[in-house]
């Protein structure tokens, strides 16, 4: 263990990421306000995928493929939430080793209306059932995000096989590494802090900050999508035929629903209805607005016209960028992160995309990858108390720690990013190969030309 990390442990620099573990003292009763708040947030996060993300993605495809994306979102959502209840929640959020949990909650065993989960505040708990559901909808949107990268050509059965493998071997370990810990209730002194920390996930122990899922959700999904775009190959006619979004109205409605639902995603990650949730809420509003302006003006200056697709894409870029930082940075830090994400992603979907040379159809990496990485790194900068951030909460003194090293935290953030990129990329590659061997990962050429809606799903969205 390096000196830096020893020091972090000693000062309690591990503070918060989303999530606690199970079993806190049975005497603690959930507060009705906190509980209600988590119900609302869980439903809001579900709204992000169905119909938010589905509409956003569906509008971006050509009209012959819109239903294929909608059905992929709806079925993958359902598949993942079922797997989550069977083994996902257990492996991600029970105490195991630093990389993965155990099967203590297999089939949600022992999860009763009386079970409680810890939060980030000592003595505050929420019903574990709603904690399970809240974390479950995070897993679903992460998997649904990936389908954008290989939209308009992937085979439905292959996608489902890929999802089962990737969810099990990438989402669950990364979520465990970043978010799993026993909660703060037993921390009284340096020794107990070390004991609690030792039970946490690997990246959490290191001190990586990820408030609502910049690494676990966005970078994780984005790199898996990028790998998919390489393995599956380009759409027929990519770069030669026009592949215009077929309905920009859907795109705008979808992006707006994502923004609305994201209040549950970010502010809900505080796990209580408190000041930290309020900070995350305000930051989600401000960073996103700054990103819409950032993308719009960048596009206006560089490409000549401010487009609706630019504004909607900037909205998503800002939401992704502020996700890891939401409860750690001040409102002005949020504006800076949002604007930076808006600018950076204009490059992500043009210059960077050309560099990769692959056909990431709906720019999953260009937006979720670029804004996710930028947001993770900038969290290390703007979480600094000197820049208006909250700093790191010290559970020994029960106050924000006065010590904060920007370079030190940025390096930790970079490690979180790198681990996620490599882990997810490797798992995704293997998962796509297995899916390809089992059922095939791409539809035949004539079916792709005619469209997936009629060929894979037997229906069409519009009368011709």
């Amino acid at each position, binding site marked *: 263990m390096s000196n830096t990390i020893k020091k972090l442990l000693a000062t309690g620099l591990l503070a918060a990421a989303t999530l606690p573990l199970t079993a806190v003292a049975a005497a603690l009763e959930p507060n009705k306000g906190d509980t209600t708040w988590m119900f609302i947030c869980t439903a809001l996060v579900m709204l992000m995928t169905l119909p938010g993300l589905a509409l956003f993605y569906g509008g971006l495809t050509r009209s012959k493929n819109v239903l294929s994306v909608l059905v992929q979102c709806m079925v993958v959502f359902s598949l993942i939430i079922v797997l989550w209840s069977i083994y996902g929640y257990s492996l991600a959020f029970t105490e195991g080793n630093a990389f993965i949990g155990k099967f203590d909650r297999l089939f949600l065993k022992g999860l009763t209306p009386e079970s409680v989960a810890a939060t980030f505040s000592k003595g505050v708990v929420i019903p574990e059932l709603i904690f399970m559901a809240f974390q479950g909808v995070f897993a679903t949107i992460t998997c649904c995000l990936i389908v954008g990268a290989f939209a308009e050509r992937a085979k439905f059965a292959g996608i489902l096989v890929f999802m089962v493998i990737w969810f099990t071997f990438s989402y669950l370990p990364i979520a465990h590494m970043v978010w799993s810990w026993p909660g703060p209730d037993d921390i009284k002194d340096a020794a107990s802090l070390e004991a609690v920390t030792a039970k946490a996930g690997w990246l959490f122990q290191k001190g990586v900050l990820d408030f609502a899922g910049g690494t676990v959700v966005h970078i994780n999904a984005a790199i898996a999508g990028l790998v998919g775009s390489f393995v599956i190959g380009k759409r027929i006619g990519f770069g030669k035929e026009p592949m*215009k979004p077929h309905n920009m109205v859907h795109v705008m409605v979808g992006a707006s629903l994502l923004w609305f639902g994201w209040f549950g995603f970010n502010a809900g990650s505080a796990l209580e209805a408190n000041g930290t949730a309020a900070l995350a809420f305000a930051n989600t509003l401000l960073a996103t607005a700054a990103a819409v302006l950032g993308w719009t003006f960048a596009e206006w200056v560089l490409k000549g016209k401010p487009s609706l697709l630019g504004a909607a894409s900037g909205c998503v870029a800002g939401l992704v960028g502020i996700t890891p930082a939401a409860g750690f940075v001040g409102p002005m830090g949020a504006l800076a992160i949002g604007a930076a994400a808006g600018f950076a992603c204009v490059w992500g979907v*043009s210059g960077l*995309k*050309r560099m990769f040379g692959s056909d990431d159809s709906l720019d999953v990496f260009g937006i979720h990858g670029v804004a996710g990485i930028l947001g993770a790194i900038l969290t290390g900068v703007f979480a600094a108390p000197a820049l208006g951030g909250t700093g790191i909460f010290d559970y020994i003194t029960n106050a924000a720690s006065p010590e904060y090293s920007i370079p030190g935290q940025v390096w930790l953030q970079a490690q979180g990013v790198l681990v996620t990129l490599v882990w997810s990329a490797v798992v995704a590659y293997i998962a796509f190969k297995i899916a390809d061997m089992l059922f095939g990962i791409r539809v035949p050429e004539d079916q792709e030309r005619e469209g997936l809606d009629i060929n894979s799903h037997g229906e069409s969205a519009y009368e011709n």
Partner: protein
Amino acid sequence: MKLITAIIKNFKLDEVRTALSGIGVSGVTVTEVKGFGRQKGHTELYRGAEYSVDFLPKIKLEVAVSDDLVETAIDAIERSARTGKIGDGKIFVAPIEHVVRIRTGETGASAL
């Protein structure tokens, strides 16, 4: 008898129809078409991808008129469809060999 075919801007259709009715033209066939001329197309930009749209939407109007109405009809279309900007369209005139009104079997100019 002549068949006048005019390619005009979409938003000029109403004015042209009114002008033609005003000079006693009793029927017009309208089709939505796409094409290019000197106006050429335009480019659309979606994130990093730029697409050139080579064919612009226009309205094609077909009017069959008796010989004595040809000049007035051409004049009416020309005046009502003109904006003075590029892309106003064109008028083509071709002779008609034969006309039949299906309901009554009338032929020639009386069938128009």
